[in-house]
């Protein structure tokens, strides 16, 4: 037990004074009523007018808040945080062909971004090649089209992969894309053990929220654990899962749900990895997280701090991790896409700025800031530059990076952190009672919670209880921006021709053998000898396309479609 931060008598005096003040407050409201009947965060957590030390009287500074880089890490995962090194400025980028995206990568790097992040187009995300009939009209529109290892080569042309880390937002086909990345990097002379980066590879949140669906839950998990196992042995600097809350939030969940469901996904991955025979301290240090940074400023900061504390406690108490590194919730953050508007799009710069500030004060390791035109389609160069500069201005001009976790001790922020942790923990207990996340998904539990929250917010918006400037307050039309990036339909034709040529040129005998080996491993029980990664690396080197590998998966493991429950 720790010592409380204030003595009982001090708390009593404060509470008494607060009650007194509250009377004055209500008197004043008679003359000038509150602006709203009820004040709540964007997730509808009610907030009071004022917080005092009495609101955090039960906490213990060292046990609950602590110091940065020390358990329970509420104040940050490293002792030096941004004093030692700023967060990585990692702008999500992907458009058209590999060459187009490579150009965008170089543009961003030359303007100061410090890490790469790859957005893939929908066919790639869903495990289809550009020449698939299902891919008609989708090539290059939401990200880059990657069908073969040759596309991967062009994507990362002239980039030192040992010096810069790469994040790739890819889920069911993650093992295939990672294999292409590793194989290509080695072809370029890089050492896989020195490669740093992340694959999103978080299948559980697909069933819950993002819905890039391919295989059923069990084999999806098997493939994820294969990558964790492979990373532990062969690519120790690589983060094999980015356990994501971003998409859960974008689907309409509350901050508490985002936190709880994501942490529970993490719990599931840890359990599955342990079942595979890995020791928790072997792999947990390379699990990373991905949080949304939404428009309600303090709610996001509190959520991120609560998250760090919860994860540390879970890793230590539930999974008995011994190494401190296994308890760290390192995370990337992206400002909330769903908070941006098509109406008066320049307002989005302001939204992104406050959201980015929240992520910085929340202690993110890596950050993407949305561009003002990201509502329409892929950001233009002009817009993405402003977004990058936003991070740089925050980092170098405002001083917020110069003191670690500066909001700690704020009565409101600490009270909100505690509250969010409490509510998220209740969800975690409920999921335990349901028998775990896969069981909960089969019963549509997280999906229904999210759908209800989304509908609730929509109704609040339409009643005017929640405000979006330019939409339901000071409503405005949406203009045509001067610089909207369009993807030419020609891109699709070129890519199809390229893939066709590639397929003609490859060594079909070598490919056949490699695919047989991949199939043998997939059909066998999960273990190191049947780990798909080595077989995939050989297969993509032999010229397997992304779809060919995914079709094999679909054939062996079956497919999954969203049950569409309401």
């Amino acid at each position, binding site marked *: 037990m720790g010592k409380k931060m204030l003595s009982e008598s001090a708390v009593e005096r404060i509470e008494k004074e607060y009650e007194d003040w509250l009377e004055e407050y209500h008197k004043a409201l008679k003359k000038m009523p509150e602006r709203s009947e009820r004040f709540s965060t964007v997730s509808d957590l009610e907030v009071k007018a004022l917080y005092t030390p009495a609101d955090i009287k039960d906490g213990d500074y060292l046990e609950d808040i602590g110091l940065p880089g020390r358990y329970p890490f509420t104040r940050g995962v490293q002792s030096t945080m941004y004093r030692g090194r700023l967060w990585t400025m990692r702008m999500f980028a992907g458009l058209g062909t590999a060459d187009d995206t490579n150009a965008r990568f170089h543009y961003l790097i030359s303007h100061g971004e410090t890490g790469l992040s790859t957005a893939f187009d929908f066919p790639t995300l869903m495990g289809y090649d550009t020449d698939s009939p299902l891919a008609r009209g989708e090539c290059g529109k939401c990200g880059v089209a990657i069908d073969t290892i040759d596309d991967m080569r062009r994507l990362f042309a002239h980039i030192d992969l040992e010096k810069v880390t790469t994040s790739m937002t890819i889920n069911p086909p993650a093992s295939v894309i990672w294999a292409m990345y590793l194989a290509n990097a080695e072809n370029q002379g890089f050492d896989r053990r020195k490669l740093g980066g992340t694959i999103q590879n978080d299948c559980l949140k697909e069933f819950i929220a993002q819905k890039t669906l391919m295989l059923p839950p069990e084999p999806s998990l098997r493939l994820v654990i294969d990558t964790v196992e492979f990373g532990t042995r062969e690519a120790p600097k690589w983060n094999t899962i980015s356990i994501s809350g971003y998409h859960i939030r974008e689907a309409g969940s509350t901050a508490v749900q985002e936190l709880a469901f994501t942490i529970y996904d993490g719990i599931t991955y840890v359990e599955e990895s342990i079942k595979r025979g890995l020791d928790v301290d072997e792999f947990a240090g390379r699990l990373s997280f991905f949080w949304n940074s939404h428009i309600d400023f303090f709610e996001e900061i509190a959520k991120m701090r609560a998250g760090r504390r919860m994860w540390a406690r879970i890793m230590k108490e539930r999974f008995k991790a011994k190494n401190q590194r296994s308890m760290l919730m390192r995370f990337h953050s992206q400002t909330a896409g769903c908070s941006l508007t098509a109406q008066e799009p320049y307002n989005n710069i302001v939204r992104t700025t406050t959201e980015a500030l929240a992520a910085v004060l929340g202690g993110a390791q890596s950050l993407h800031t949305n561009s003002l035109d990201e509502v329409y389609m892929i950001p233009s160069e002009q817009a993405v530059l402003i977004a990058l500069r936003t991070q740089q201005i925050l980092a170098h001009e405002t001083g917020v990076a110069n003191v670690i976790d500066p909001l700690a001790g704020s009565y409101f922020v600490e009270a909100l952190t505690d509250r969010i942790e409490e509510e998220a923990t209740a969800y975690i207990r409920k999921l335990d009672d349901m028998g775990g996340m896969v069981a909960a998904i089969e019963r549509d539990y997280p999906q229904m919670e999210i759908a209800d929250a989304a509908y609730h917010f929509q109704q609040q918006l339409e009643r005017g209880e929640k405000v979006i400037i330019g939409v339901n307050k000071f409503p405005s039309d949406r203009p045509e921006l001067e610089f909207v990036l369009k993807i030419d339909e020609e891109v699709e034709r070129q890519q199809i021709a390229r893939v066709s040529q590639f397929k003609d040129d490859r060594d079909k005998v070598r490919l056949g053998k490699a695919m047989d080996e991949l199939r043998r491993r997939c059909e066998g029980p999960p273990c190191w000898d049947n780990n798909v990664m080595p077989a995939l690396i050989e297969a993509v080197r032999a010229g397997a396309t992304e779809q060919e590998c995914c079709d094999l998966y679909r054939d062996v493991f079956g497919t999954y479609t969203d*049950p569409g429950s309401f």
Partner: protein
Amino acid sequence: MSHSPKKTYAMTIVDLILAGDLRATARLLRDIDDELPTARNILKKLYPHTGKAHVVGFTGSPGVGKSTLVDQLTTRYRQEGLTVGILAVDPTSPFSGGAILGDRIRMQRHFLDSGVFIRSLATRGHFGGLTRSTFDMINVLDAMGKDVILVETVGVGQDEVEIAHSAHTTVLVTVPGMGDEVQAIKAGIMEIGSIFVVNKADREGSRGTVRELRNLIELGLRHSEDASWLPPILETEGVKGRGIDELHLAIRRHKEYLFANDRGQLDEVLRKRARNQLIEALKDEALKTLLQRRQARGLSLDVLIRKIIAHESDPYSLVQEMLSEELQ
């Protein structure tokens, strides 16, 4: 005149439906759903062409996996070269009168197969788990030429009995751990199911649920007049496709049983179905006619309702009075 233009038009629709035209069938089903009198005329003409299809009903609580089983069975039937009609029922919201019909999603792979016709219906306030017009819609799909008609119910309450009266074969679907639900249907379990399925059989408690069902069935058989069909209890995993072949076979065996030599069983089923259809049609028409006649004389139900609330009379006496007035 030998026939009116209206009659000719109605016959053209009939021809289209008998030829299996999708649009005409879909539109007629809509008219039936909305209880349009014009639909009745067309139904009358279609009726002689019914009686060929094997009608299989699926009942069980929401979430047990009926849609998935229907989807898997449809694949088997198509492999056999049989055509399939599917009616999937979802509940109407009591507040708004609207409905979300989402069972189709689980049968996506059949959307482009012209041998499969899938229709989603809302209960529209009918509490029996089936809609009022389900009988008629089954007849339309039958006349259209579908070899097998699979009917999937909402799966709550008394619908088990209803579906048994409109189908030849009824499949009751449960999942492990639903012991209480199974106990609740012990009264008349033989009335309900020809075949019993424990789906999601990979879950804990599957064997236990099978045992409970077996006990109930044995109890039912002892008290039943006719013990010639022993309902099989099958374990399936719909999503993985396990146990589907066995289910397919069990359904076929039941059909063979019904059509066996003396046809006694089939006749009994047909008798129950026909009786039910007749009673339902009679209930509908009698009520409608009665209310219409009263309305024509300016009599509404409001006066009677007020009498009941004020305890001046009771519903039963009022109905008797109404009937003796009307049936004079």
